[in-house]
């Protein structure tokens, strides 16, 4: 019975690690978005150097918004790695 328990926990932990890694593929989206944002800002400053202050401010907000999805993925990955809710579920299941 004990070996079964260890095996079950091992499977859950391994799958969680894979899940955390997979979740961070979401880093692609914000990367592309922020790159676009920065590139367009550079273009805009090149066209209108006197408006660089306002453009930079807008760019920072755009960057922050683009980052949101990546941060959701990061939170999910951290939850899976350090505060795994699935292990609790497994404990409940095994106790039954």
């Amino acid at each position, binding site marked *: 019975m004990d070996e079964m328990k260890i095996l079950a926990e091992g499977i859950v932990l391994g799958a969680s690690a894979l899940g955390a890694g997979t979740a961070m593929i979401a880093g692609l989206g914000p990367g592309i978005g922020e790159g676009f944002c920065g590139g367009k800002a550079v273009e805009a400053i090149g066209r209108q150097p006197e408006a660089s202050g306002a453009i930079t401010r807008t760019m920072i*907000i755009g960057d*922050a918004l683009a980052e*949101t999805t990546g941060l959701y993925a990061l939170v999910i990955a*951290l939850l899976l790695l350090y505060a795994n*809710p699935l292990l609790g579920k497994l404990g409940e299941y095994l106790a039954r």
Partner: protein
Amino acid sequence: MPTALMLASEGGGITVNGPLVVVDNLFGIPGLKLTESIIVQWIVIAILLVVVLILTRNMKVVPETKRQVAAEWIVSFFVDTVDTTMGKKYHRYRCYIMALFCFIMIQNLMGLLGLRNPTADVSVTGTLAIITFCLVQFNRGKTGKFKGYMKSFVEPLPFMLPFNIIGEFANPLALALRLFGNMIAGTVINALIYFALGKLAILIPAIASLYFDIFSAVMQAYIFIMLSMSYISSADCEE
């Protein structure tokens, strides 16, 4: 659910801790905890209080000391920022925005003193986001009264109602998670670098810390106030 996570390398392994619970069951109330985040926040408040008291002592009409010039520069920076982002109509929010920025920035910089960032705790950032959420609702109710408040949820079309309500709650959630995620990412990555380099941790952690502890700290505080300001001023029924 644990409120936050933290890494600390201890003798070859990495352990994960939430914010330290200093006193459990405060005043005999079960579940009421005094955590590390609250203690560090008290330190932040003390620092802010001392700085403000020093900067505003012996003010003159024409600034004589560098202290007063610095204080006036800081205040005029926030006055300009609020006026350009929210408009002159919202001059009442200047004090709140300035206090919010200073509070978040000093909290983020606490990592430099070796303390735990209070903002790497989702309860702290969540509280700050809820204050912004309340201000958004307050501003919408104040500018639109009851009718305008209700009407703002069925605009532009009535079937948008569920999306508008979800969007209303998604904003503070994203605001809280953005600050929390950035600060916890800095903490975790720094701990991982220390763990990976072991005894060779000489120059690289300093460069990483320069980005995560200083640049990211100031930037995230700035982003938090900019987004708060645009959320509050966009919840205006009169425009």
